[in-house]
């Protein structure tokens, strides 16, 4: 798939969607926006993590997206999906969209993940869902400054928290560790007075502003 077909793919893809997928899209668009002022223990966050063929946005392909629900600060194995982009990218993304709903999504490194995910949605579903994005890469150094105070890579945080997983560089394998970072962030955030999604969003925004 070259850059041209990526560019024109969107509208054409939307027309080819199955009625089932169209229904999912409609339902998603009609769903109410999340209340970002609710405390963490009443909020469902979705940790997203992508697995691509490499780290170059221009040349590498998205292979899979893992999504892990964190509800009430708890990470439960039952609340998780992992969507492969092959062989049915549209079906996989539909499942993902249904799973996430309008919940705020949490990633490590928004720039990379958001770009890959939005491009996939546009290409295969002809539509870009607008979620509230949260980036742990920016939030963690605020909440856990005693561990690391700068912008660092995922590996550094994994090491700092001493996390383990069943498979590194796997969408779900790394997603599991990012989800653990999120529940830690929610716990530490609550203890420090950042008790809502909105306060974490603010935290990220001011951190980005300060670093600019």
């Amino acid at each position, binding site marked *: 798939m070259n850059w041209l077909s990526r560019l024109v793919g969107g509208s054409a893809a939307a027309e080819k969607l199955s009625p089932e997928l169209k229904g999912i899209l409609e339902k998603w668009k009609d769903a109410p926006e999340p209340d970002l002022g609710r405390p963490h223990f009443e909020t469902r966050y979705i940790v997203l993590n992508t697995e691509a063929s490499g780290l170059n946005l221009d040349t590498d392909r998205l292979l899979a997206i893992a999504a*892990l629900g964190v509800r009430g*600060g*708890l990470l*439960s*194995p039952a609340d998780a999906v992992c969507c492969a982009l092959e062989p049915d990218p549209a079906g996989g993304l539909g499942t993902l969209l249904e799973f996430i709903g309008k919940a705020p999504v949490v990633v490590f490194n928004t720039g990379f993940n958001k770009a890959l995910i939005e491009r996939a949605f546009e290409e295969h579903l002809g539509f870009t869902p607008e979620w509230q994005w949260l980036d742990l890469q920016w939030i963690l150094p605020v909440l856990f400054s005693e561990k690391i105070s700068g912008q660092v890579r995922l590996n550094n945080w994994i090491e700092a928290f*001493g996390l383990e997983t069943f498979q590194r560089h796997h969408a779900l394998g790394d997603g*599991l560790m990012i989800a653990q970072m999120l529940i*830690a962030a*929610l716990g*530490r955030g609550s203890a420090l007075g950042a008790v809502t999604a909105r306060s974490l969003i603010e935290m990220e925004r001011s951190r980005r502003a300060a670093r600019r």
Partner: protein
Amino acid sequence: MTEATEMLVGASVDFLCRHSPFNRMEREALEFLASRLALAFHPKDSVILSPEMGQVKHFFIIQRGKVQARQTGNVSVTEYSSLNMDPGECFPIGAISAQRPSTNTYIAVEDSFCFQLPAEDFMSLMQMSPVFHLFCTQYIASLLNQSRQQLQIQFSQRAAEQQTMTTPLGQLIKRDPVSVTAETVTRAALQQMADDHVGCMVVVDADRKPIGILTQSDLLTRLLLPAFDLSRPIGEVMSASPHVMSSSASAYDAALEMATHGVRHLLVVDAEERLLGVVSERDLFSLQRIGLRQIRAGIESASDVDALQQASRDIRQLALNLIAQGIGAEQLTRFISALNDALTCRIIELCIDRHELHDAEFAWLAFGSEGRHEQTLSTDQDNGLIYVLPEGVAQEAYKLKLIAFARSVNEDLAACGFPLCKGNIMASNPELCLTLAEWKNRFGSWIREPDPKALLNASIFFDFRSLYGIEKLAEQLRSWLLANAKTNTTFLHMMAGNALTVPPPLGRIRDFVTDDDPQHPGTIDLKKSGARLFVDAARILSLRTGVTSSSTVQRLRQAGQKLGWSSDELSAIIEGFNFIQLLRLRSQHLDTEHDAPGDNRVNPDQLNELDRRILKEAFRQARKIQLRLKLDYQL
């Protein structure tokens, strides 16, 4: 289950498999556990679980970090006051099993991740996984074992403050003894008594060995009335051969000695029989309004049932006072037994006079709890008679005479507060007023044909002892019984099966299984599902090993030794039995009538935490002894 869920469950399984007991758990149970676990984060210094949170809702497994368990409340129930736990360790096992609030507070001492499992899934897991079930019960058992040791320390500290009847006499001596030699002028001795404010003067020889005593109560009868010349030596007026006891004897021994001999002072001596001090009745029963000796004297001098009724009330009062003083159940029941024996003997003596049976050769037998020396305050009569038919006498007429006598005894006992036996297990029942040969026949038929009725009878009648009369008759019956029962394995096997019909009221989920009797909701019958478990097992052991004692504690101790049980295990079992007996006595404490409906019942929810824990431990001991029977008899 989505593919993602399967992978995450797999990741949790991998973690669990690195830690005990999960690494030994059945695969299916492990996957169930992993699929139900949710991971939570607990910031440093945050409380994960505390007693205030009420009934425990989750079982926690530490995934990462460090958690500290801290004891809360006044009563320390475990060896530790705080305990650090690492990844793979889990909590709170006892509280969640018992569906109660945690007794500890659990705090994250580092940023920690913990898996949590909902309580209902914990229960399912216990049922699903024998490995996990065993792990939890062993954990709870070890906790209770710890708490038992802890309690013993606490109790012995309290006991030291309170002075119980098990205190060695040496510790009861309050001051150096006041003593003189036999040559001392009586007036000087009396002067010294007055100066030192003592109630008695001990007379010793050159080696300080006591040879006599002069007490205040002797003054009137020995000095004043006979107008004794006070210038003469005290040796001429003292009571010679005074009652002495070793300093290692217990207060209880001393009390019995005083009661038996009707004295108020005992001289305490060391191993070389040299005088160490004097212990008075008042020292022993400082908290007690009625003395043993008075009751004993009251019984012995009673000339009719009215006087004995008073003594019976006094025995009850004394028992209550002794309970208040914290005396142990074994001693207490023996006390009650000893005094009730004296009362019964006096009634029998009075009836012998009335029925002119002075020459009759018989033994009055006590059965059941009285036979075992385990009378509580609420015991009805269980007695019988074994007699020798005089030569040349018609049996029928003689037996009628004995039965008439026995009926008088039964009625007098009833008048003194021992209700007539509803099952007519009384000496006035012609079936239970038998010669030695007839008793052997009776017992023999039960052993040969152990139907349910026979087993029930065996459980009552095999706990017999002679209470009055010719003891040898009872001994002959016992040695015959032991010889016959021992060889009949079918009978012992049936007895064992019968003893196992009632399990200890321990719940798998709740601490205790309470009675569903609508009359007494939420209670446990400490006799039926407590004491009897030990009593039945002890009886079988005694028959099997030929132990002649009829007391449960003695049976366990002697038979257990013969069977090679460890002394720790034996003491734990005996302590368990004694504690249940003590609770029974305490629950009867408030009831004034014998055999009141609430007797023997205890509501575990109304016990304090300590008693509840010990009671649970006691029932565990009952289970242990039942398990031994089960193994021994392959039931």
